[in-house]
């Protein structure tokens, strides 16, 4: 069964550095998402992406964040200047075209900001 894959599984970065989290969605999916889960807290929506542009974003997704689909297969989340509070699990998800198709999640990337 096809899966969403995320790399790396764990990223450790100094505060203020840029970080790029990578995701490869399921190949025939059209909608892509990033979520964040701070340790001990709920999963939070960050951004959704469709047709090569952001379709929705949350208040969390400020100017420090950006997403890209650079080559038609990867879907990346970039944090330009990381802060301590960016430490969290970041999940990528994708879904097929029909609106009520479920989102399929990757294993997540644990981001630790020192």
């Amino acid at each position, binding site marked *: 069964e096809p899966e*969403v894959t995320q790399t790396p599984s764990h990223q450790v970065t100094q505060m203020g550095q840029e970080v790029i989290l990578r995701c490869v969605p399921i190949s025939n999916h059209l*909608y892509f*998402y990033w*979520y964040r889960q701070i340790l001990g*807290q*709920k*999963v*939070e*929506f960050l951004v*959704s992406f*469709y047709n090569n542009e952001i*379709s*929705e974003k949350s208040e969390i997704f400020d100017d420090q964040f950006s997403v890209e689909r650079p080559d038609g297969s990867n879907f990346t989340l970039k944090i330009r200047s990381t802060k301590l509070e960016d430490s969290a699990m970041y*999940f990528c*998800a994708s879904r097929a075209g029909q*609106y*009520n198709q*479920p*989102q*399929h*999640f*990757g*294993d*997540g990337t644990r981001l630790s900001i020192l």
Partner: protein
Amino acid sequence: AQRVTQPEKLLSVFKGAPVELKCNYSYSGSPELFWYVQYSRQRLQLLLRHISRESIKGFTADLNKGETSFHLKKPFAQEEDSAMYYCALLVPMDSNYQLIWGAGTKLIIKP
């Protein structure tokens, strides 16, 4: 405002006992709800969705619009059911949909 509430952070029951994980939602439109499960060190996986009205791994969930609830139930818990369970509400946005998540309930099945 759209909101999903899972009142129990932790639920611990003995193997073979019935399980009910509570989920309440707040949404003005016609709700579409999901249960996701996250086993230890694994990804979030879809467990079930209310529109399919199916039973997965012995779990069922019924949408009760009057009580705005979508509780997850299983008559006889098994040790392998130990996991984090998340209730989620699908909400349409301008050109897409997003999931609004509950805080999750950690289910521990004691032998």
